[in-house]
């Protein structure tokens, strides 16, 4: 869950915004956006949620000045949305990557770089870094028209970042991307938020929004139906989740007794399921490492096909030597080597040490769940300590990375989200966000981060130079 506190500096402000589409005879045909008020603050990841046709894209297009509001006002950086100067700080990824089919990746980014008055050297550097980051450097000379949707999406993302934008507007950023790309985008969004950038995210993929957004507005029929922080909207204030390694039924019973003393009962005992996304990332990673050792043996299979198709656009494909080279370049040397503050999507870093769960070893252990009515007010801290002690006595170490059992209990007033989050299976190292203390920090991860670092930093420095 996002931790940082956005400042109250307003980046986008929509007041009483309405867009009515008229037909040929100027009769009102559709009210696409119906008197909405929105405020996006600096450093915030704001999610605009809603089903297809709920007015999300129309709102975004009005914010970008591509559509004119029928009534109401919009201010972006305090200015009119069609003012050219504000575009200097905006990065936009449309719902589909509308690219010039006849240009190649390099030329595409060159073009957008030119629009930002970037000189040749600046463009070269940024484009090289961006292409590496989105993993398209090997196909940089192929016409964009030949790209798969996911590759085009990556170029779209690269062009949105070419100016180190203060405000990033992403319309369905993960559509058409494979899970690896999706994860990369989510990491990027979190990373940008960490660096104080503002992100306006528009999506109907709820999981994406939930993972990265600080605040969301849910739109339907052109109106904002509900708005608030993700915590406000999603966290169940009446539940606590405890996670530990697999427990014997006897132990569970013993815990139950402890809880019973405090008037609580176990509602559910089970083994956490891995998220499909995670499983996928694991399998791909494993297949890739095998592919590296048995070169040429990859043939036919669905997964292998996917890999060959996307091998060129996967950062994981970069060879170790190249990575080291990259790391030693001046741009790379600027990179922070210490573990970065992690993205909020991946749980509390200090709560668990990573436990790699092999996909095959996930064996749900069904445990009898009992339900008892809640009783008197408990001493919560004491409760938890007691549980901890009990488990230690029974020789169940939280650090043992075998399997885990989740116990859900009705424990009030405990900030529960971190515990809930930690029931995710650990990420494989290469897909992990930097904050989690992975045991074997993956090189690729560091490269990406350092690249991003230098990408964002170099421009900032440039601007600082300009200012001074």
């Amino acid at each position, binding site marked *: 869950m996002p931790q940082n506190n956005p400042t109250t500096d307003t980046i986008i402000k929509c007041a009483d915004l309405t867009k009515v589409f008229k037909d040929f005879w100027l009769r009102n045909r559709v009210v696409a956006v119906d008197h909405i008020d929105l405020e996006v603050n600096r450093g915030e990841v704001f999610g605009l949620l809603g089903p297809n046709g709920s007015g999300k894209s129309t709102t975004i297009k009005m914010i*970008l000045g591509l559509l004119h509001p029928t009534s109401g006002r919009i201010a972006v950086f305090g200015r009119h949305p069609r003012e050219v100067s504000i575009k200097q700080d905006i990065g*936009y990824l449309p719902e589909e990557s509308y690219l010039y089919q006849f240009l190649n990746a390099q030329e595409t980014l060159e073009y957008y770089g030119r629009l930002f008055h970037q000189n*040749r050297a600046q463009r070269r550097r940024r484009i090289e870094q961006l292409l590496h980051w989105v993993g398209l450097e090997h196909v940089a000379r192929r016409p964009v028209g030949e790209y798969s949707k996911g590759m085009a999406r990556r170029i779209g993302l690269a062009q949105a970042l070419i100016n180190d934008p203060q405000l990033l507007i992403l319309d369905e950023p993960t559509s058409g991307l494979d899970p690896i790309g999706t994860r990369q985008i989510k990491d990027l969004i979190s990373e940008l938020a960490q660096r104080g950038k503002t992100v306006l995210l528009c999506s109907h993929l709820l999981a994406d929004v939930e993972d990265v957004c600080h605040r969301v507005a849910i739109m339907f029929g052109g109106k904002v139906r509900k708005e608030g922080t993700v915590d406000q909207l999603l966290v169940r204030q009446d539940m606590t989740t405890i996670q530990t390694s697999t427990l014997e039924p006897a132990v569970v019973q013993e815990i139950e007794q402890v809880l019973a003393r405090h008037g609580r009962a176990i509602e559910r005992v089970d083994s956490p399921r891995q998220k499909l996304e995670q499983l996928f990332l694991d399998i791909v990673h494993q297949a890739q490492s095998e592919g590296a050792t048995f070169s040429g043996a990859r043939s036919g299979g669905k997964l292998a096909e996917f890999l060959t198709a996307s091998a060129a656009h996967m950062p994981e494909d970069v060879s170790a030597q190249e990575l080291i080279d990259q790391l030693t370049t001046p741009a790379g040397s600027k990179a922070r080597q210490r573990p970065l503050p992690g993205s909020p999507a991946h749980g509390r870093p200090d709560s668990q040490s990573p436990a790699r769960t092999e996909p095959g070893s996930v064996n749900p252990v069904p445990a009898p769940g009992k339900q008892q009515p809640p009783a008197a007010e408990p001493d919560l801290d004491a409760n938890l300590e007691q549980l901890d002690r009990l488990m230690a006595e029974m020789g169940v170490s939280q650090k043992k990375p075998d399997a885990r059992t989740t116990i859900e209990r009705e424990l009030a007033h405990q900030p529960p989200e971190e515990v809930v989050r930690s029931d995710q299976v650990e990420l494989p190292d290469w897909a992990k966000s930097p904050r989690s203390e992975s045991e074997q920090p993956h090189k690729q991860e560091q490269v990406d981060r350092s690249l991003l670092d230098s990408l964002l930093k170099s421009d900032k420095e440039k601007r600082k130079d300009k200012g001074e």
Partner: protein
Amino acid sequence: MLSLLVAGGAISAWLWLTDQRLAAIWVNGTFDLLAAAWLAMGLWRWRSHPVAGRIGVVVAGTATAALLCNIFIVFERNALTITTVGVWAMSIGFYLALQLARRLLSGGWPVLGVARTLLDEAVRLKAVAVLLVMLFILVPCIPLLIDPTERLTYRVQQFLTYSLIGITTLLSLLTIVVAVTTITRELEQRQIFLTMSKPVSRGQYLLGKWLGMAVLNALLVAVCGVAIYTFTMLLAQQPATMPEDARELHEQVLVARQVVSPRPQDPAQLSQAFSERLATLRQQEPQLYGQPGEAESALRNEARDAIQKQVITAWFAVSPRSSQTYVFRGLTPARQNAQTVQFRLKPKSAGVPKEDVVYLALRFNNRNDRVMTRKIGDGKYHVIEVPTELIDDKGDLSIEIYNPPREQIDGGSATTINFNTTDGLQLLYRVDSFEANLTRAMILLWLRLCFLGMLALATGTFLGFPVAALLATLICVAASGSSFLNQSLSDYAAFPKATVPLWDRLMFIPRGFIDFLQKGEFWNAFKLIVALIGSSFMKLVPGFSEFSPTQSIAYGLHLPFHLVGRAALWLGVIWTGATGIVAWLIFRARELARVQV
């Protein structure tokens, strides 16, 4: 590779010196082949690298052209060889110039960025590729199509006319296609969303697109100009049918000649003729021309125009046994710089002369020692060389044309001889070279394409591809034939002149329309409406006719700098600017995204 060449050269040189000539040739050839193969391999290996790719294109094009040339040389088709070399030179020249232009436009400015992307788009569009191939094949192929038994002068004139018309048409088409496609496609495929969410104003966007078009056209016009010049020179070196033919070519086509039109000796002569004619007409038809003795200013404009036309036509006619004097003024530069001036005339007999020839006697500067008689083909242009020493100190040359009675010469009947009022009688003298003239012609063509590019962009801002392309083409065609169209329209249905008061002009159409309807002349009423629509359209269309260089180049007529300047002002600044502002206003106001709910 260099070492291979050097080693091969050294060994073969040694073999050559030791008298083993055959071996020397073999060794040299083998090493050269090896070097070429090595180069080709290298280019293939690094083909994804832009520089290697560019060199590869040039090498591949050159190799193909060389292969074709060798085949043609073996089969002794020299004309085809020259054509191939021409196509190769034009393509390679354009390709290199394009790379240079892309480099020039690579600065970090939004306008340049848009312009450069337009260049990239233009040369990668299929329709444009087809047009470019046609363009590069057209100029070198025209000489093949011209009948080699014709007179040389005529062949060169044909080549110049066809090639200029050809490139004007193809380049206009190319400009419309590229400009309309680029803007409508970006709106339709929404690449414009991305461009417009960058710090680029809509004006900069349009300006960039136009700049790209202008640069592309400049490249193409330059390449075509050089090609036309080269092929003209190659054609001019072909054997002439007769010695005069070659001289004529150099004196009448491959020059830039100033044209002087005749004036009456006495300036009052024509106005006097006008008054006389008016008096006669007033006696005959007072209802049309007013009562005799009325002031001339009371005359209706149409009537005045008609009488003026009659008077001038009469002045350009020489009746039998009489003469007419024509004075050409302002010839001082010719007197200083040239040996002779050319007196060009096209007599047209009123009747059907025997053997299709007319006889004329000419007297220069009223001097009886300067008289010549000529037998001239009826209705054909004829050029008489006049020594410049005949021009007097004021720079005037007067030529009296005498129409001798036929019976005096061959017993034929007497007929009046008429001269076309526009170019039936002209005095020409050389003022500039063909090269400079062709350059100015190319600049005129480029200016016209610049306007056309902006026009096509403007139509693209608010119309879809097919309609925008059609509209731009329609305006282009109307503008090219503006003088002809205006003439036809005024002949088609009578229309009040600009000097008539505004109110009368406005009321003319409804009044005339009702008149015709009352008289039951529905066809005339319909014609009036057609004329209204046509002339309103033509009012909005700029005239290209004045700036069309084709005739001037083919007939070796001087295209003065002030014409180029006027074209730059009208086409380049006023019309392009006005169209650009309209395009900008439309584009600025419109919503770029569309409804999707």
